[in-house]
């Protein structure tokens, strides 16, 4: 049903120098500590990473709760910040498609889609036989997902031992690591323009609309980059 060799090859991407385990650990430890601060219990903290598993959305949820936002408002705010997962899935899953594979694998494993697993899969899917790429993906996803849940729990338990400076240090690891990975992925003109323009437009549009900034920045920067790529190469 699942090709174990491909699955474990994916799982093993947690090891080694390019592993996302360290940045994932750092940011989910910081998230666990934040949850404790926000009044969550340990089961709720673990459940959030288990069922949501998308750090920016979880941050929005915790902060909105503290501000007293309604559940509907939280839903909308999270949907907008996590909408990036839609284009990310569409730019990965066609690479993992194979006619012999059942659809449930795709519907279930889309839950593993996060920045860490996405970047790793985009970088290494070519090494795997097309038939078993979805199993490889499930291996990557299982590893990163379980790391996130475990580290949320550890962060929750260790919250009292961590001072503010340490938590701030942990929280910066995540954007730095992913920026480095994205710079590593800038191998053609279209992707390079996407990354550079997106980085600039994200904060600029945020000044005018905090909630819609990611959607607009992504659409504008991505479309400009696509057109440039088509014209020049």
């Amino acid at each position, binding site marked *: 049903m699942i090709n174990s060799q491909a699955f474990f090859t994916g799982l093993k991407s947690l090891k080694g120098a390019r592993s996302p385990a*360290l940045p994932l650990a750092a940011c989910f430890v910081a998230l666990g500590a934040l949850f404790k601060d926000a009044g969550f219990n340990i089961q709720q903290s673990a459940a959030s990473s288990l069922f949501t598993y998308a750090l920016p959305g979880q941050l929005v949820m915790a902060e909105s709760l503290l501000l007293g936002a309604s559940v*509907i408002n939280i839903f909308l705010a999270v949907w907008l910040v996590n909408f990036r997962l839609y284009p990310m899935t569409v730019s990965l899953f066609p690479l993992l498609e194979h006619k012999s594979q059942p659809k449930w694998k795709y519907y279930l494993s889309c839950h593993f889609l996060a920045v860490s697993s996405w970047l790793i899969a985009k970088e290494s899917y070519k090494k795997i036989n097309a038939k078993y790429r979805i199993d490889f993906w499930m291996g990557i996803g299982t590893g990163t997902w379980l790391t996130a849940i475990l580290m949320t729990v550890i962060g929750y338990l260790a919250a009292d031992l961590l001072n503010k400076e340490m938590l701030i240090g942990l929280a910066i690891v995540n954007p730095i690591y992913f920026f480095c990975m*994205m*710079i590593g992925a800038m191998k053609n003109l279209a992707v390079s323009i996407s990354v550079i323009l997106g980085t600039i437009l994200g*904060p600029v549009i945020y000044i005018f609309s905090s909630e819609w900034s990611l959607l607009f920045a992504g659409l504008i920067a991505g479309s400009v980059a696509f057109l440039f790529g088509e014209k020049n190469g």
Partner: protein
Amino acid sequence: MVSSQIIILAIIATSIATYISRFMGALTSEKVSVKSKIFKWFNCVAYSTLAALLGRMIIFPAGVLADSELIMRLIVFFTCISIFILSKKNLVIPTIASAFLLSFLTNI
């Protein structure tokens, strides 16, 4: 303190709001060919949305990062990206350096 019921409802709402985007992506993927232009467009939009999110996390962060100063985050950002490029794309050194550097700069 937020009540337990509200927290559980918020976790459910957050999880559904997140899974919708992933599941819609899986459904759309069935109709998108790797060689098509629309796939290339989605690829660009995915990278730029991600870059926008990361840019925003550095300039207008949420969570504990908001308690650090912008100038400190920018110093760490440019230092670590330079280390990454100069170290021939070593990922471990800049990521570990970023944590120590920002903790240190926030402490002084």
